[in-house]
C-alpha cells in the first residue's frame, strides 16, 4: 500500500444550504463534498461563479453568513472536527491556524488605519501564551520581517503607509503578510489575484508559491482561472453543480480531464471559436476605412478646491483606422486610455481635439446628438450588471431604441425585438424578464442586442467578456464573431487579454499610455512584436 500521510484538513460529506429568509425554503449549495488537503500542498478548487467556491472557504473558516447552514458532514482539521467546536474556540483557530485572504484587497483594509496597525492587531487579537511579554518593539520587528518575506523591499515604508497609498498588488501582499504573521498551517486564498492586473498577478502568485514552500504552508487556492491553477496547484478539484466532479493531481486533471465539465472549462480557457481560423480575405489596400481617427487627444478636467483645475491627458495624438466589416482588437494594460477612446468615439465624452472621418467624411461635431442621427455607434460595456436598467424588462429595453428614434410602426416593434433576440441567441421566454433574472452571459447578449437594434456600422465592445466565466466567454466571443460575419458590422474589441484578441480579431492595435504604439495583422503582432509593451503582453499567453 502506498504511504498516505494524515491530511491537514479533511472535508467529509459536507452538505450546505441557504435558507430563504422570507419563504424559509432550503436551497442546497453544496452536496456531499469530500476531499483532503495534505501538509504543505497547494490544493486548488476551480469552478464557475456561483458554484459555491467562496461559501466552501467560508465554511472552513467558520465565517458563514447567518442564512447558510451546514446540513451534514464534518470538517476535520488536525484530527479535530471543527463543526463540534465552540464558536470561541473556532474564532481562536481562525488566524492562528487558518489564515485567509480575499479577492478585493481594498475592502479588507480599514482606510483610516495604517498597514502596521492592521498587522499589529493580528498579533494582539491572538495573545500567545508562550510569549506573554512581547513588547511593541518586538511585535514591530516581527511584522517588518514578515513584510520583507512577502517581497517588500522597504518594509518600513509599508508599515507606516495607509491602504490608499498602496497599489492593489501591494495591498494584497500586505494582507498575505497579515495572514501569515501567526504562522498558520493553512492559508485559504479566495481568488486572491482576480482584481489585479496580469503582471501583478504573476508576481503575487510566485510569491505565494515561494512562501508556501518556505513555511511548509498548505494553501487552499480558489479560482475560476485554469491558467493560474496550472501554475499554482499541486492538486486540483473541480466544483460543478454542487459537487466535486473531479479531484486529482493538477497535471492529470488538466491533461486528461475525466469529466465533461472539466473538458468544457479547458475548452473555455483556450477560447476556441469555430470558424475563426478561416481568415477573411484582406480588404484591398485602397479600401475606404469606415472610421479614420487622426491625432485625437482627450483628457479629463477635474475641478479641485477653489476652482483650481486639474487636467489629465488620457489620449495623446491617437490615430487609428477601422475598416468596414472587420474586427479590430485594441489591447493595452489597464489605465492606458482604451475606455476613454471608446467614449470619445461614441460621443459620450466631449472636449477632445483631433479629427474623426467616417467613410472619409469629416465628422465635424463630436457631440452625441449629431452622431446618433447620422450613424449610430453601438457600445457594449464590461459589466453586464451595470449596463442594463434593473427596472425594465428585456423586451422594453430592446424596444427603446426603436421607440425613441421613431423607427418602425409600433405594432411591428415587438416582432423586431423577437427577431433580434433570436439573432443573439436569447430564448423568446426572456422577453418579459428583468435583468436580475438573467445570467451574466445572457445580460451581455441583451446589451449587444440593444446596440444592434439601430443597425450600426460599428460596435465598440469594451472588455465585453472580462467579467464572465470562461465557458461563457467563448460563447459570447463566438456570438460577436457570428454577428460580424453575418451582418457585416465592424467591431472595435477593447480588451487587456490577448487570448480574446487572438480568438476573433482580424487586426490588432496596441495601446500604451494614451498612444497607439503598434498596429498590424494579428499573426504578425503576436509572432514578431516590435515594441517592448507588445512583447510584455504577448508573454501572457
Amino acid at each position: 500500500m502506498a504511504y498516505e500521510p494524515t491530511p491537514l484538513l479533511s472535508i467529509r460529506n459536507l452538505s450546505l444550504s441557504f435558507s430563504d429568509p422570507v419563504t424559509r425554503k432550503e436551497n442546497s449549495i453544496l452536496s456531499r463534498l469530500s476531499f483532503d488537503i495534505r501538509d504543505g500542498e497547494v490544493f486548488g478548487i476551480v469552478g464557475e461563479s456561483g458554484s459555491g467556491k467562496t461559501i466552501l472557504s467560508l465554511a472552513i473558516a467558520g465565517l458563514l453568513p447567518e442564512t447558510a447552514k451546514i446540513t451534514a458532514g464534518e470538517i476535520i482539521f488536525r484530527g479535530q472536527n471543527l463543526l463540534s467546536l465552540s464558536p470561541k474556540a473556532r474564532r481562536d483557530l481562525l488566524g492562528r491556524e487558518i489564515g485567509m485572504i480575499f479577492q478585493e484587497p481594498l475592502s479588507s483594509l480599514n482606510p483610516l488605519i495604517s498597514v502596521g496597525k492592521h498587522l499589529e492587531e493580528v498579533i494582539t487579537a491572538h495573545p500567545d501564551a508562550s510569549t506573554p511579554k512581547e513588547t511593541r518593539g518586538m511585535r514591530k520587528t516581527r511584522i517588518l520581517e514578515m513584510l520583507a518575506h512577502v517581497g517588500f523591499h522597504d518594509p518600513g515604508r509599508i508599515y507606516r503607509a495607509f491602504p490608499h497609498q498602496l497599489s492593489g498588488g501591494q495591498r494584497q501582499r500586505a494582507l498575505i503578510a497579515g495572514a501569515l504573521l501567526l504562522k498558520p498551517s493553512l492559508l485559504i486564498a479566495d481568488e486572491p489575484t482576480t482584481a489585479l492586473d496580469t503582471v501583478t498577478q504573476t508576481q503575487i502568485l510566485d510569491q505565494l508559491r515561494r512562501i508556501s514552500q518556505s513555511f511548509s504552508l498548505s494553501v487552499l487556492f480558489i479560482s475560476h482561472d485554469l491558467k493560474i491553477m496550472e501554475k499554482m496547484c499541486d492538486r486540483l478539484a473541480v466544483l460543478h453543480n454542487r459537487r466535486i466532479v473531479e479531484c486529482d493531481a493538477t497535471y492529470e486533471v488538466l491533461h486528461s480531464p475525466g469529466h465533461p465539465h472539466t473538458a468544457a472549462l479547458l475548452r473555455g480557457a483556450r477560447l476556441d471559436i469555430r470558424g475563426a481560423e478561416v481568415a477573411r480575405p484582406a480588404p484591398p489596400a485602397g479600401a475606404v476605412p469606415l472610421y479614420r481617427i487622426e491625432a485625437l487627444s482627450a483628457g479629463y478636467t477635474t475641478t479641485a478646491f477653489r476652482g483650481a483645475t486639474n487636467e489629465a491627458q488620457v489620449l495623446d495624438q491617437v490615430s487609428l483606422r477601422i475598416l468596414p466589416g472587420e474586427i479590430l482588437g485594441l489591447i493595452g494594460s489597464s489605465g492606458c486610455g482604451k475606455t476613454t477612446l471608446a467614449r470619445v468615439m461614441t460621443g459620450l465624452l466631449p472636449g477632445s481635439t483631433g479629427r474623426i472621418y467616417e467613410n472619409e467624411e469629416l465628422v465635424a461635431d463630436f457631440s452625441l446628438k449629431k452622431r446618433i442621427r447620422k450613424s449610430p455607434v453601438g457600445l457594449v460595456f464590461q459589466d453586464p450588471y451595470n449596463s442594463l436598467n434593473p427596472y425594465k424588462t428585456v423586451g422594453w429595453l430592446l424596444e427603446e431604441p426603436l421607440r425613441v428614434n421613431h423607427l418602425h410602426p409600433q405594432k411591428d416593434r415587438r416582432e423586431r425585438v423577437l427577431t433580434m433576440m433570436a439573432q443573439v441567441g436569447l430564448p423568446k421566454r426572456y422577453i418579459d424578464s428583468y435583468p436580475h433574472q438573467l445570467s451574466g452571459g445572457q445580460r451581455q447578449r441583451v446589451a449587444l442586442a440593444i446596440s444592434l437594434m439601430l443597425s450600426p456600422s460599428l460596435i465598440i465592445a469594451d472588455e465585453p467578456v472580462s467579467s464572465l466565466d470562461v465557458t461563457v466567454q467563448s460563447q459570447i466571443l463566438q456570438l460577436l464573431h457570428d454577428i460580424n460575419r453575418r451582418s457585416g458590422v465592424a467591431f472595435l474589441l477593447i480588451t487587456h487579454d490577448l487570448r480574446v484578441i487572438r480568438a476573433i480579431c482580424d487586426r490588432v492595435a496596441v495601446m500604451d499610455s494614451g498612444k497607439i504604439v503598434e498596429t498590424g495583422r494579428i499573426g504578425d503582432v503576436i509572432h514578431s512584436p516590435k515594441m517592448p509593451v507588445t512583447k510584455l503582453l504577448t508573454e501572457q499567453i
Partner: protein
Amino acid sequence: MQRIIRFRNHSIFLILGGVFVGIVLFCALISIIYLPDDPMATNSMTKLAAPSADHLFGCDHEGRDVLSRVILGSRPTVIISLLGILIALLLGMLLGSAAGYFGGAPDHFLMLISDSIMAFPGILLALVFVAVIGKGLPGLIFGLGIVFAPSYARIFRTGIRQLKDREYILLARLIGVKPPRILFVHLFPGLVPQLAPAIVVGIANMAMAEAGLSYLGQGVQIPQPSLGNMLMEGQSYLVYAPWIIIFPSIYLLFYVLGMYFLSEGVRMKFKTGGV
C-alpha cells in the same frame, strides 16, 4: 423601533398603518355626506358636557358636538397633507432633477436656494409663507409645500447624481434618448425605493405641521374646525373637559403613527424586494 419590536415581516407595518390611516381617511370622506351632529351649532345646554350616548366624544365650551367637529376637522388635515406633499414633491422633483442631472452652476444655484430654505426652522418659515400667501387652505398647502420641498429636492438630486453615470444611462443616451425621457422613464424608477418611504413620512410630518400652524391660529380659521385649532380652543378647559383635547389628539396620533408605520413597511418592502 426595529430593535424593540423586530418584526421580520413588513406586512405587519403595512396592515397596522393601513388600518390607522384608513380610519382617518374614512372619516374625512364620510364627513362630506354625513355628520352625527351640526359641528358649528352652539348650544348653551350642552356646554362642556361629558361624553354620553347623545354626544359620544362630549361637547366643547360652546356646546358643539366634539365627534362631529373631529370628523370634520380631519378633512383639512388630510387635504393639506396630501396636496401639500404633492406640491413639495413637484417642486422637489423640478429643482432636484435639474440640479442633479445638469450639475455645475445650476446645481450650485438650486442647492443654495434649497439650503437656505432648510436653514430656517420649518414652522417659522411656513408662518411667513402663510402670511404672504394668505390664511386658509391654499396658503397652507403652498406654504407647507415650499417648506417641505428641499428635502425631496435632495433625494432627487443625490439619487440622480448616483444613477446618471451608470452605464445603462450612458447606453440610453447613446441610443438617442432625450434628457426628459431619461429622467422620467429611465432614472425615476430607480429612485422609488428611497422616495416612497420619504413621501409617506412627509405626509405625517405635514399633518403635524398643519396642526401646529392651526394651533398657533395661522392655519384653518375658527369657527371652521381642524385638529389643530380644536387643541388651541380646548386647552383652557383641559382640567374640566379634557375630552375636547383628547379626541382630536388621538385622531392626529392615528394619522401620524399610521403614516409612520406605512413608511416603515414600504421601506422594508423595498429592502427585501431587492431589485
